[in-house]
């Protein structure tokens, strides 16, 4: 088995699935109907991307696990998503901030992955890039409205930025798994995505009239299965039905 590629497919698939699941929690709770629909639509895109990556991960592993087995029958320590994806929704400003920071990273990452030497990764990236570009624009517009809005909305956006900023560093860290794939042209060094991400984030923050938070603290570990306390609760809900009825079929 190509263990580095398996890990990498899990990292990408898990990040999309967990973020998509978080967004789906807004279904029926959005501040206005259009945003309720928007968040559910974005969740669908992300879960769709996750299905493609997890199906591929299962094929690479070659032990008969399909997308459902990987999504519903893995415990917390086996998840490889970025920690930012599992952070709770908070208020609407927090959800949009988390979404923007991740989507801006996904845009740069998938743009690079369309040139991957792995055909399957390149094909999924070419599909996903169209979707995450929309996501980034949508969330970015909200960043501007909230930051340059009322005192209340501005305060909430600033709180959210400080809350999530420390989780973004993990997105740009290269480890042995990815170094192996970089050498084979499957992906690019994680830190090489940072300048373009910085530029996109800075541009939106400037429009939103807010300052970029300082890099005072950072949390990492998701890529290796070390998560915040929030992931376990999320999985307990997401996995409860398939675990209670493991043989259930549609």
């Amino acid at each position, binding site marked *: 088995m190509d263990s580095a590629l398996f890990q990498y497919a899990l990292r990408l698939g898990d990040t999309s699935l967990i973020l998509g699941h978080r967004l789906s929690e807004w279904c029926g709770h959005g501040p206005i109907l*259009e945003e309720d629909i928007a968040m559910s639509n974005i969740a669908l895109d992300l879960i*769709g991307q996750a299905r493609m990556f997890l199906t591929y991960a299962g094929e690479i592993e070659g032990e008969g696990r399909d997308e459902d087995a990987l999504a519903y029958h893995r415990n917390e320590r086996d998840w490889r998503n970025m920690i930012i994806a599992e952070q709770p929704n908070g208020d609407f400003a927090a959800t949009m901030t988390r979404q923007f920071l991740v989507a801006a990273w996904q845009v740069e990452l998938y743009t690079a992955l369309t040139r991957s030497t792995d055909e399957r990764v390149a094909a999924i990236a070419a599909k996903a890039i*169209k979707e995450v570009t929309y996501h980034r*624009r949508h969330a970015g517009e909200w960043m501007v409205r909230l930051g340059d809005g009322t005192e209340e909305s501005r305060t909430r956006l600033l709180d959210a930025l400080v809350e999530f900023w420390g989780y973004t560093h993990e997105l740009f860290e290269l480890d042995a798994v990815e170094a192996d794939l970089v050498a084979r042209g499957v992906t690019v060094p994680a830190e090489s995505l940072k300048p373009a991400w910085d530029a996109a984030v800075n541009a939106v923050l400037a429009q939103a009239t807010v300052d970029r938070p300082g890099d005072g603290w950072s949390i990492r570990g998701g890529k290796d299965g070390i998560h915040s306390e929030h992931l376990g609760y999320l999985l307990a809900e997401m996995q409860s039905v398939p675990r209670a009825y493991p043989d259930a079929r549609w």
Partner: protein
Amino acid sequence: MPAGSPNRNPDAAVARHSEAKAWKVLDAVVDPEIPVLTIGDLGIIRDVKTEGDRVTVTITPTYSGCPAMNLIEMQIRDAILGAGWADVAVVTVLSPAWTTDWLSAEGREKLKSIGIAPPVGSAGGRGALFGAEPTVSCPHCGASTTTKLSEFGSTSCKALYRCDACLEPFDYFKCL
């Protein structure tokens, strides 16, 4: 038989006839979310191959998470088996990624007829993707003064607009 002269190859002729028949059968399969459109109109059928009693239909998803894809796959199976073939395989390919440029001209007219504005321009320019706002005409009264209400509409592939002239809200099939 010299290579490259398929007209003289009776097997190839039969296969072509059979494939044309399969395409015709697939014309009856519609998008469950926009039932005026056939999957042919949508441009998601990438290839149809027949081999004796077996048909292989290759499709590509519109959006990664489009919930209609599973149903479309089932409908393709039903249609092919219902038309008398013994076996059918539905293969999904991701590359090249689907684009609204593949929507047929007929499909665009059908969209208008049910009050959905078809995609404006070509996805190749990527203007739509990177923030350039297209001029979307109202499918009800034809006015070009319309306002985007939301980037996301009733399905993944649509955005929500309102006509400033007749004030009717409408769906716009996003350019992707």
